[in-house]
């Protein structure tokens, strides 16, 4: 699944950033295979999404979150 499907409070491990013109921008922010992310907040209109990555919180639009392939952690 992709990161836009994560529910609030759920944690997931990134396993791939799908190829697009934004791949690098996403990676540079620290979204890399093997990293754990969790969804902290959805904006009131369900988009953008605020992800916790390590000690930082980064807001991405759904369209960008769709580029991040993840697996949910139990």
């Amino acid at each position, binding site marked *: 699944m992709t990161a836009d499907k994560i529910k609030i409070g759920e944690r997931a491990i990134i396993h791939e950033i799908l190829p*697009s*013109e*934004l*791949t*690098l*921008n*996403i*990676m*540079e*922010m*620290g979204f*890399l*295979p093997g990293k754990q992310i969790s969804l*902290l*907040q959805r*904006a*009131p*209109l*369900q*988009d*953008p999404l*605020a992800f916790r990555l*390590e*000690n*930082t*919180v*980064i*807001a*991405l*639009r759904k*369209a*960008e979150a769709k580029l991040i392939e993840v697996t949910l952690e139990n």
Partner: protein
Amino acid sequence: MPEVITPEKLSTFTVALIGNPNVGKTTIFNRLTGLRQKVGNYPGVTVDKRYASVKLGDQQATIIDLPGTYSIYPNSEDEVIVHRVLNGLDKSSKPDFVLAVVDMSSMERGLFLVTQIMDLGLPMAVVLNMADTAEEQGIKVKAHALYKALGVPVIQTNARSNKGINGILDLIGQQMFEKPTSFLDSDKLLPAELSANVREKFTLNNTYQAYQLIRFHNNEPILSQEDHDWLHEQVTQADFDLKATQIKETQERYAAIQQVLEQSVEKTDIQKKRLTDQLDKLFLHKIGGYAIFLCILLLIFQAVFAWSAVPMDLIDGFFARLSGTVAGWLPEGVLTDLITEGIIPGIGGVVIFIPQIALLFAFLGILEDTGYMSRVVFLMDRIMRPFGLNGKSVVPLISGIACAIPGIMASRNIGNWKDRLITIMVTPLMSCSARLPVYVILIGIAVPATNVGPFGLQALVMLGMYLLGVVAVLVTAWILKMVLHFKERSYLMVEMPMYRLPRWKDVLITMYSKSKTFVFEAGKVILAISIVLWVLASYGPSSAREEAIAAVEVPADGASEEAMLDYRHNLESAELESSYIGIAGQFIEPAIRPLGYDWKIGIALITSFAAREVFVSTMATLYSVGSEVEDELTIQQKLKSEVNPNTGEAVFNLATAISLMVFYAFAMQCMSTLAVVYRETKGWKWPVIQTVYMTALAYVSALIAYQLFS
């Protein structure tokens, strides 16, 4: 006796301060340099160059504060600067040393940038900042282990509490920077032959520099066409896949950083609820979040319009008195008139905006510094998107209620060019403070002071004018989104930093330096236009002018003081009417007649090009109230009683007043804004399009308004 150090004896060197956004880099810069900061320009771009000279012993260090960035690969205008400075493409600000600031609680991302700089081979040192928050999160950095792993000096600071600042000064003073060995093996990234060729041609020190040049040759206008073509040829020959290489570099770099961190960082898992997360529940709440944002907006409104009224009146009065005093000192003549009627009011016209601009910048500074601004972006992004705008467009648009110029300048941090361009194009439609005096006069004339429910009708109309501006922004942005086609994809990636209390000193410094930039940027244009308009309003074809002046009835000897005053006002008005501007006003009358304006209003439309509020003083002169009258009521009464000699009807009926307000709401009557748009878009194309569309919008809307109300 201490030796006197002359500037020539000082050895000078340049230090570039660099780091991710929100790592406290600017605080460190402020602590190191205080108010010695200067603002300059980088060649070819619009980003302000902030730098300061600091004397350390017998040395002089110039410290440059580079824009915050996550990597040396630029995504926005700001970040292009970082790329150029570090790669030595900008000869005027080539640094001798780099001081990289890293947020201790976000080491991984910080080191990403640090190791890229290491690979460029620049002598550097690393500052680990925000030690206190890192500790709260259970993060400990073994500085010595990190030093051993990186091979460059590492110091810890806490810039907010001033801890470690002296350490940084010592480090700079003793030049304890070290030239690092490269972190990643760049030779694995680039084919050997390609690397060798590029290094030789451009005399570069290492492969990573060659790689940077290759990476950017397509969109680096600083390179000559010849160099560009040569590089392109080389890349094609070597069949080199840039994009894949860069992704590989990013992954390998992060992997290598991970190893460094394992040796040098200790993490204890503290399962503490972060205060920031709690605050976000409130500030990002689907109803409460917007309610709080609305309250903050109202507070900014209140400050920009109510609190600034007192200093603005003082400034207004000061410049009026200054003109009078100077006129008394100097002998009568053209030069004196130029100074007292052209230059002094021209400067006054700029200075009067300083209280509003400064307050606006203070508020924006506080919102930025506390971390709230990125929450506004988060809240507003989805709402702005259908209109072709972006969450980051909100700040420029809010600034637009004070003045479009700082608003347009604030659009720089929108990374996406299409979103940024649309923001620039629509920001001048927000009702800026120069329109306010125009609205006040016209509403006073045309709208009865009755109440609708608990609200005054006049206040409601005023609110309506502001809403009209907002609606125009959204509709125009939407149309631009439909019309403009760019290949670039719109995106949003914003870090939401932890909430902090604002650092007042930083807020003040930001306010001061931004206001200064505004005064000089807009001031130049406003002053120049004021002088040109003064000349056009003071001179005219001599025969017609003499006739007009001679036609003014001279009161008999011994006439009352009142009659003399009337005479003077009539004379002033005759002079203006027969000037070049007066003639221009009559020339455009056929075009503006359908909007309900006579040629006198036409004159005011032209003089408004210096600044919209000049409308008021021009009308005062034209209708012989005397331009020195400060009392708005006097002008209002006079204008109300004005009758069109041809039709016998009042000139300022409701329809004309509404039509004029609508015209002022939409028309591009601000040369300074055009100058800034020219600067920000690097050409005349967009300012010209902006002027044309805004004028057309103003004309058509005013026409419709006039027809509806008459």
